[in-house]
């Protein structure tokens, strides 16, 4: 029997499979391994950021700084490697440390100054973007043989598709994320805080430490997403990834996680990411939509998915309830 808690996830998965099927009916080319490989590689940085976002949202918070932190990391790494000749690994490490500390700081403000996360991270969003401008306003290319090696590493599927290193990093992050959320005390504490912060505190959950860790994790993953983005584009650009946080939030919510916190699955976010990627791929394959119809169609599809999801969940909830009663 499907557990009530997994219902949103199963629903989203079903919607995704059906939607993909419909796409293939219209464009048989979309079944190729190439499209699947692209789906994973192109959304790798978004996926990684979305894992962090899922933890934040599960705890009842939100992190608007994600896009800016990605941009900052990419510029920072690009300038270190491109202009100062630092080894990429060192630059990655430095970037991760900075983004993690940045997350820590936001977590501490949220916890100890009691400013709502929406606002703290909104200020963080301005700050990180502003810091990126200070590092460089121009786009900075990177060429380094180490990076070329990394990019050259991929597994080829039959049919021309490839599983790149970036996609692998994302899959690993998702796997680890799933385990952390469902199998560690930290994960349980995240759900607890998201369920009800007062109750969690009264049950002995270390709310302060957990909050800081959650935002540090999101900062870390944003940094990692930034690194992946840097590799993806072999450059850093301070205007990049504007509004990516909204894409991440949408993916998390489409994946069945409640913005009020406490309910949701990391795996759902994965499907959410794939669904969004699918929409974009479909629009590219269609190739007839004007700039404005693109926006409208994305909006409509978002709406349809969410309403579909709600309806299915509402309907099955009712059936579940009736069945339980009969059993009693």
């Amino acid at each position, binding site marked *: 029997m499907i557990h009530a808690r997994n219902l949103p996830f199963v629903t989203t998965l079903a919607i995704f499979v059906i939607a993909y099927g419909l796409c293939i009916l219209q464009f048989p080319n979309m079944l190729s391994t190439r499209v699947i490989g692209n789906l994973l590689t192109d959304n790798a940085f978004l996926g990684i950021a979305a894992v962090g976002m899922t933890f934040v949202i599960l705890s009842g918070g939100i992190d608007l700084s994600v896009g800016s932190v990605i941009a900052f990391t990419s510029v920072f790494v690009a300038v270190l490697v491109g202009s100062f000749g630092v080894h990429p690994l060192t630059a990655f490490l430095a970037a991760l440390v900075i983004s993690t500390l940045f997350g820590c700081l936001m977590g501490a403000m949220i916890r*100890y100054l009691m400013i709502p996360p*929406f606002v703290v991270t*909104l200020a963080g969003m301005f700050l990180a973007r502003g810091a990126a401008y*200070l590092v460089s306003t121009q786009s900075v290319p990177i060429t380094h043989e180490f990076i070329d090696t990394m990019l050259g590493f991929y597994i080829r599927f039959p049919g021309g598709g490839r599983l790149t290193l970036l996609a692998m990093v994302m899959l690993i992050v998702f796997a680890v994320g799933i385990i952390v959320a469902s199998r560690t005390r930290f994960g349980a504490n995240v759900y607890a805080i998201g369920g009800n912060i007062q109750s969690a505190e009264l049950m002995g959950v270390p709310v302060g430490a957990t909050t800081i860790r959650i935002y540090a994790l999101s900062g870390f993953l944003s940094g990692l997403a930034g690194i992946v983005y840097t590799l993806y584009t072999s450059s850093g650009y301070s205007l990049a990834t504007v509004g990516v946080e909204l894409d991440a939030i949408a993916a998390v919510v489409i994946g069945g996680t409640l913005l009020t916190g406490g309910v949701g699955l990391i795996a759902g976010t994965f499907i959410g990411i794939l669904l969004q990627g699918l929409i974009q791929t479909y629009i590219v394959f269609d190739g007839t939509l004007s700039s404005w119809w693109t926006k409208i169609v994305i909006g409509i599809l978002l*709406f349809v998915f969410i*309403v579909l999801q709600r309806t299915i969940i509402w309907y099955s909830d009712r059936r579940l309830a009736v069945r339980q009663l009969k059993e009693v």
Partner: protein
Amino acid sequence: MTWFTRRLRRLAPQLVALAIILGIISLIAPGFLTISVQNGRLYGSLIDILVRAAPVALLTVGMTLVIATRGIDLSIGAVIAICGAVAATLISDGYSLPVVIAVSLGVGIVCGLWNGILVAVLDIQPIIATLILMVAGRGIAQLITEGVILTFNDDTFAALGSGSLAGIPIPIYLWVGTALIIGLLMRRTALGFLIEATGINRRAASLAGVRARFLLFSAYAISGLCAAIAGMIVTADIRGADANNAGLWLELDAILAVVVGGTSLNGGRFSITASLIGALIIQSINTGILVSGFPPEFNLIIKAGIIIVVLTLQSPAIMTLFGFIKATRRSGKLNHGTKEATR
């Protein structure tokens, strides 16, 4: 008198922050505080702030109500674009001003009601519900203008953005007037009280017979209405509808303004006046950056820095500390009677 002191106390942190920010800017940019009359119209950076604050201030009014219901409205930037596009299209098609205004306002309200349906009836979480219109709305606006900046030549409509009446720019009348009307509507009727109750505990309010859905609808509709007025001002100001850029990311400024104004994002007690002061703070920062002459690379970091400082000083943690000090002092005063408190 006690009412007045209570109000003042509620608004004090915002007023102080505004004063300090204006003070600092005037140190960097001399002449910032001077106001003169030119061409029969008040003129000066302070006036600029009041005029330029119009869109954010209007959005802030609606956003305050939406946030009071424990929601959030990300779509208002896009609604600005839609209503601006509608107004520009109608004006260039030669419709009369009242028709243009009425239709634009109507479109804004419809947008708000759409959000209201998603939130109140379909029970979609506000951020996501309004994200849908945020994404699609800009597309709709571009659909109306077909991607171009739709310009028009109608001086009466343009006056909504750049005209003045009795020496005072018209946008100031519009936002102050709207805020006054909506503020009175909230506080002279029971709407404000019921919205607060719904925002704090929707279930308990419903069980007490409060019609939560109606209230959610009205909050989002008012938000759409305010965005429509802002959209007309923005369009009239540049004599053209720029569907792609009008109101872009303005919703974030509006949210910041509400929070700087001290209304909790968790819904409940709200103050439109405080939010408006918040909007003025945000706009002062923006204008201050422009007149200060720093290179544009620094814009965001300055803005972020100031906002973080303001938020930190106003944060519940620091305010409790403040409040605690005040409370002990007040209890000391109580022994001497209340004379001093009213002074």
